[in-house]
Structures are given as C-alpha cells and as structure tokens.
C-alpha cells in the first residue's frame, strides 16, 4: 500500500475542507437550523466525514451537541450483493441515545455511485425507527445511478466513466486527504 492508489488528483485537502464547510452550511440552511438533525455516517469513510460535518455544524450552531447528534449506520447486513461477495466484516452501528424517531436524519457517505449502498442504508434505518425525513450528503457524486436515488447535498459532482475508479482518501483512514480518479487498468 504505502502511497495508496496512483491516479489523477481531483480534490486536494483544502478542496475537501471547503466543500464540507459549504455542505454544513447548506444542511443548516435547508433545515432552518440544527434543532432536529441527526448525522449518520456510513462506514467506512462516511464515518469520519460525518464527524467533520458535525464539528463544522457545531461551530456554526453553538446549541448543537455533537455526542447527541452523531452516529454511524452499518449497512453490511442489508446489502443486495451478499450472495456474490465474500463475507464482509460487519461494522458497529451507533444510534444517538435519543433515537431517530421524528428527527431529520442526514446520511453521509463518501461516494454516490449506483445508489445501492443508500438503498441498503434506508432499509437499515427503518429498523431503528421512523425519522421525519431522511436526507443524503456525499463528498462526491460520480453519476451512473442504478436506482431512483439522489443526493441532497454534494461536495463535488464528478462526471466519470464506469471504467474509472474514484478513491476518497481521508486523514482518519488513509493518512491523507485527497480524491483521486484512476483508470481500472492502472488500479489493477
């Protein structure tokens, strides 16, 4: 591993920070504050992104207590491709103590692609309660949806071909912040 995948850099660390700051503001604007918000990151990289968004929101809205509003939602057991893939490690799910009933849940993931992860996340969410609304924030939307799903908040729209791979690297999981595009044959 070491350097991580080679490829063409489309977002540097500063770009990611700026995009997340903007998304934090957009979330607050469209929900008219943070009173009813719960942020749930989808492992693996949605979790650090959710943490960063939560701390941005806490800076803007002093009444927002991160520990009461931040969680993570594992979707492994809800995937529709379990028959074909090797068993995947299951990650913990952490729902904030007051639950999600009646709240506005913002799901957070790194890349929106086919939409299947989000479909699974909506199923998983339904087993934890009944939010008033569910919204979706992603760092990168790369297109090629296979389901009628869209993001409410997007860090960067990135038109790609299916032969390309988008890699989001984050300090917390990969020791650096960057978004890369790689051709499949280079990555292999």
């Amino acid at each position, binding site marked *: 591993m070491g350097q991580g995948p080679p490829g063409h850099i489309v977002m540097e660390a500063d770009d990611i920070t700026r995009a997340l700051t903007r998304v934090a503001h957009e979330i607050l604007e469209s929900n008219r504050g943070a009173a009813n918000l719960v942020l749930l990151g989808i492992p693996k990289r949605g979790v650090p992104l959710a943490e960063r968004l939560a701390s941005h929101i806490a800076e803007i809205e002093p009444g927002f207590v991160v520990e009461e509003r931040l969680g993570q939602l594992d979707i492994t057991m809800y995937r529709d491709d379990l028959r074909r893939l090797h068993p*995947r490690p*299951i990650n913990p799910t952490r729902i904030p103590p007051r639950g999600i009933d009646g709240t506005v849940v913002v799901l957070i993931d790194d890349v929106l692609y086919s939409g299947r992860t989000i479909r699974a996340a909506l199923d998983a969410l339904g087993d934890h309660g009944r939010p008033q609304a569910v919204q979706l924030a992603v760092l990168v939307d790369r297109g090629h949806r296979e389901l009628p799903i869209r993001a409410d908040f997007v860090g960067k729209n990135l038109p790609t071909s299916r032969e390309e791979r988008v890699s989001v690297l984050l300090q917390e999981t990969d020791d650096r912040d960057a978004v890369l595009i790689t051709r499949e044959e280079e990555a292999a």
Partner: protein
Amino acid sequence: MTAVLTHLLSARDLDRSQAVAVLDTAAHMAETQSREIKKLPTLRGRTVVNLFYEDSTRTRISFETAAKRLSADVLSFAPKGSSVSKGESLKDTVLTLGAMGADAIVIRHQASGAAHLLAHSGWTEARIINAGDGLHQHPTQALLDAFTLRRHRAHAKGMEGDGLGSDLEGARVVIVGDVLHSRVARANVDLLTTLGAEVTLVAPPTLLPVGVETWSARTTYSLDEAIEETDPDAVMMLRVQLERMSRAGGGFFPSHAEYQREYGLDTKRLGRMRPDALVMHPGPMNRGLEITSAAADGQRSVVVEQVANGVAVRMAVLYLVLTGAEGGPS
C-alpha cells in the same frame, strides 16, 4: 478481511485469526439483537435445513432462531415421523433436501463424522454446519463458550465492545465431568487452546477417553486439586451423559452420590474459587448430579447467558458460511 468459511465441521477448522473473526461477527450480531426490530434481511431467500437425528432442544431452537433472525427460510427435519423411520438412508434424505433447494444443512447425528461425510460426499452443494456429531465435535457450542468467556474477560478488564478483536490468551478453564462422551469437551479443548487459553480436564479415570494425553489439555482426577492449582477463570461442568451409559453409572462410577461428592459443583467448591470465576454448563443440566441448583442458579452462573450468546454465534456462522456462496471464492 473476515474469515472465509465454506463449511463448519470442527472447531479445528479455525485458526486463531479466523476464530477471533467469527467471535467479532457474533458480537456485532449480538448488538443487533438488542434492537426493537431484531430481524435482519441478510439471508432473505436462502433456505436452511435443520437435520437433527438426535434429540436436542437448545441447539435446534438456537439455530432456528438464528436463521430466522437473518430472514432465511428454515425447514426442521426430525427423523421420527419422516421416511427415516421407513429406513431411508442419510444419503437419500440429503439428496431430497438438496432437490428442495437447501442452501445450508445444519446436521446433528449420532455418528461421529456425519457432518464431514456430507460436506465431502458430493451428495449436496449445500454448506454444512456441524451441530454435534457423535462423540466428535460441536463447534458452535465451543464458539459460544469462547464468546461468553471473552465477553466476561473484556468486562472485567474494563474493555469496551465485548472484547472485539481479542483472543483468550492466558485464560484458565477447567472442564469437569464426562469427558469420554463429550463432543463439547473435544470442541472446547480445540477452540479454547487455539485462542490461547489453558484448559484442564477433570474426570474420573473411567470417563477420560483413550488418547486424551495427546490433547492440548492437562488432565487430573481431582476437581479440588484442579481448582486449587489453576485458580480458574471459569469452570465448565459437563453433563453426565446417562443415556450413553447402561445403568445408573454404567460402571463408570460407583454411585450418583459418590460422583456428586468428587466431581459435582456445589457452593462449597464454588467458595474456593475466585469471586469472579464463571460457572458454565452447555445444558441440559442434571441438577443434583454434576451441579447443584445453588451453583447452577447462583450469581456466577452464566448458563442462561450461554444460551443467548448461542443465537448470536450461530447467526455469525450462518452469515459467514452463506454469504459469497455463489460464484465461488474470488
């Protein structure tokens, strides 16, 4: 990566990292069982057959619960009232179940090696999980015992998350009683020592199998000595398998009273153990023989918790065996 399991036939199939991965998966499964909605869609559309040639309450119900919590369809097969009573062979029964689309077969059989036979016979494509074969193995029981031990060790050390990622290095476990007839003992010796625990077997000489000296466990004839010398983290009381003995003690021991005096767990013996030592029993218990009611129902007994953990462990095994089953390993 998570362990890749094709079948689960023996506790020996697992190396330490695989065993830890199964226990970790079980911990996540256990977490889902404290939710209001316990059912997960993971194995929707898959069929799990419980093929139990021997009587069982908790293992069969535990597997059934585990499969249903993962949304699999469950067929329970008991030889009584089936064509087995007309003389149908194991092979024909399994061919029939395969034709009905079984994705996994959970088998308990009185013959040692039955699960291995099914997995390697070519009779069926289904994944095989051994739920106890003769005097040989009972891997999910060993996994749930290891899970229970690990959880309590983690809590005692103040670790979070039921000891995720940890093994049983340095744990001391004393297994007491009818080792001869016990697949639970064999599976536990294999798994607990793989995970780094030290196991001591305690039994009268008549209830120790030939060749026990080759097992990775110490043996002694005296329970008091074992408690004194090893200061165990847990004692696991085995059921005296009276149905496998001809008369009261079948010549294996002089009388119930004498067995109880030498090898039974009562409050007096419990008092000589560490205050946080666990009392375990795979069930069903012969109360008043290998364990007194006071010990079985006391504060240190985790017998009921073992049953609850059994569901989580079996969910983990079904998940690991049945995901990625199509298309083979990549």
